[in-house]
């Protein structure tokens, strides 16, 4: 599985912030999905199944969708950032969520109750639409969140020490170090040319 994900873009670039971009996109993508759920009467049915109000159902769904967006963005990394194909990956992810969540989890959580008829159609369409919107949004949401190339290129891990075997800057540890270091540099106003350079 790790190899599969890696081959399909699991390696985010060192200047990327996939979790944040995915979470924001996941939240934004919820808006059209909620509209669709409401139009099909699915929101009322889901609230009824869960035994809470419609507002509470939306409230419970928002953090879940943000988390879902973050997971998606992290798992699919570079593929999720593709403007041409991102929507498709998102839609596939929405379909997987529908298959694993709406179809399986909801009946399990509610003692076997599940939407049927038109509300079931609404749930399907809403989750797939959410996925498509998520995938379409991420490349645009992510772009302004990227670390700056200027800052990223000042980090020690991409410098001459990278010549030493085993210190590849794309390794998870190095990428984390790069990100935390550039964040720290920014917060301390140390974006000068000397920040992070080997002394």
């Amino acid at each position: 599985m790790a190899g599969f994900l890696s081959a399909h873009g699991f390696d985010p670039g060192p200047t990327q912030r996939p979790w944040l971009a995915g979470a924001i996109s996941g939240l934004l993508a919820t808006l059209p999905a909620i509209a669709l759920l409401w139009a099909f009467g699915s929101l009322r049915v889901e609230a009824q199944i869960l035994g809470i109000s419609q507002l509470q159902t939306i409230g419970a769904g928002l953090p879940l969708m943000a988390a879902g967006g973050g997971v998606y963005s992290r798992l699919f990394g570079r593929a999720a950032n593709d403007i041409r194909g991102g929507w498709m990956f998102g839609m596939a992810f929405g379909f997987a969520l529908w298959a694993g969540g709406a179809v399986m989890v909801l009946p399990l959580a509610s003692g076997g109750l599940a939407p049927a008829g038109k509300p079931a159609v609404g749930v399907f369409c809403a989750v797939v639409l959410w996925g498509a919107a998520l995938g379409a949004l991420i490349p645009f949401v992510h772009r302004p969140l990227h670390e700056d190339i200027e800052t990223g290129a000042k980090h020690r891990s991409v410098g001459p020490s990278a010549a030493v075997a085993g210190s590849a800057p794309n390794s998870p540890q190095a990428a984390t170090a790069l990100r935390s270091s550039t964040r720290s540099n920014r917060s301390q106003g140390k974006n000068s040319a000397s920040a992070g350079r080997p002394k």
Partner: protein
Amino acid sequence: MLRVVAFRKAVLAGAAGAIAWEAALRIAISAGLPFFDIVRELGTLVFPSSGPLFWWPVGLAAHASVGFLWIVFYGYFFWGRFKLPPVLQGLLFAVLPLTLATLLAVPQVRLMHLHARIVHLDAQRLFEPLSWWTLAGLLIGHAIFGATAGSIYSRPVGYRSGHEPPPAGRTARRPHRGVTRKPHDGRSFMFTTGIECSYPTIENGRWRRDQMAATRHYSRWRDDFERAREIGVSHIRYGPPLHLVFTAPGRYSWDIIDEPMRELCEIGPEPIVDLCHFGLPEWLGNFQNAELVSALSEYASAFAARYPQVRLYTPINEMYVCAKNSALHGLWNEQLRNEGAFLTAALNLANASIAMSDSILKARPDALFINSESSEFCQPCCPDPKIQEIADLENDRRFLPLDLIYAHPVSDRIRKRLRDHGLSDGDYDRFMNRKVPRRSVLGVDYYEWNEKLIDSRGNPQALGELFGWYVIATQYWQRYNRVMMHTETNRMDAADAPRWLWRQWHNVQLLRSAGVPIIGFTWYSLTDQVDWDIGISKALGVIFPVGLFDLNRDPRAVGLSYKYLIDTFGSQPEYKRCGPLEEMLG
């Protein structure tokens, strides 16, 4: 992102698959066979009580959309994974949607048809077994879908020879005003990258590979140049697509490259223009055609007249690799596999390179030529004379095109082969008596597969970095004694690319400190490439992650490393003023 997906083909293949399914199953259902009717099931979700005039088009459109999504998925994850004919690949792939349809989609669609708004599901109801007719319908339908779509969705990159590249969609953005660079001062070391631009034909000339199209450079060239400026390179190797520009003798479509060339010349990075990169226009045929010499000379002359600002040229890129892959290994263009064809191609290429240089010099007497060539070396595995002979031949042959353009005597072994091939002493002497332009730079490319071991069966096996660029480049330096430049390198393992970059750079530093005049260093290329892991010999669309940026134009770690390197060394006195370059341009 692992593969380049042809979306238009995916739309066509997915829709065609769904239509073929519908055509076959509709006939069977009309004949009274109770197969599962997917179009009716989908259409009646929207029009539950209307006639087929309503539900049929809606159901078919919905099913075709699902088909398209599956084929996009197929294009990204599945296509080209197995060495099977496309139709069988599609058939194999269809097992996946068949499984999901059986276990999930069909039961859920039936749930959607219920009049109730909430149902109580138990395991028995959720996994209610489908009838044999339903299963048979799904099986036949998916088989038809897979075979149809698979036969249509193939070769996601490239295009039919003689045609234009498919429309790229997104148009180039305006350049960012903040990231501009002053023109190169002509004195400092050349930190360089390149736009990968190979355009050979495959499938015996029927299919054109075009790296600029596959990497979307045609639509994103402004982004690409801006990214190059962000990294801080002073130069960019840039190869206008010869097959699209030089459309017939005396006819040129300059409009394709006018704007990119203007931007490079005015804003930078300064272009090192690569006039022929592994391919020819259809009307010139292939590298066996001796007429290419005068034709390419004419093109070079016209190019230099059209873009008088350009002063740096690579007349023909990697002549040895071009001749070898076209005429000895049978991968590109003429796709021949014999020594005679190789020698013909090598001679034609060397003649063309010389003629092009002469033409350029007439228009731009101060032009500088960077003759980039793949640096190679073969190490025999054992003291077997036959193995030794193979290695010696390879080690002589690698120099052939450079020997001819640099008027350096070829080895006795190669001389005999040239004579046997029909090269007269007069023609050979013409090469050897040539006055090589003073401003000629030997470009030495180096990759991890350039050093090879001749194994006990006589086959070359890639060795990785055994001796390294320092040693191999030294062999070329000792042979030609010319100003040099490291003109290409990259690493196909993206995670290891920064290590490779720094090690290549340290090789350059060491060779400079040994007194070899080196004027530049190149990470090739700016963006990821496509299918170079198989020498672009097939149109698979597999991304080769060697770029400073990926194909989304997001930086890779090596992009940051290269910027670090340029920022660190570019301002050092010995790189700020590069003596050999000053001397050549002065």
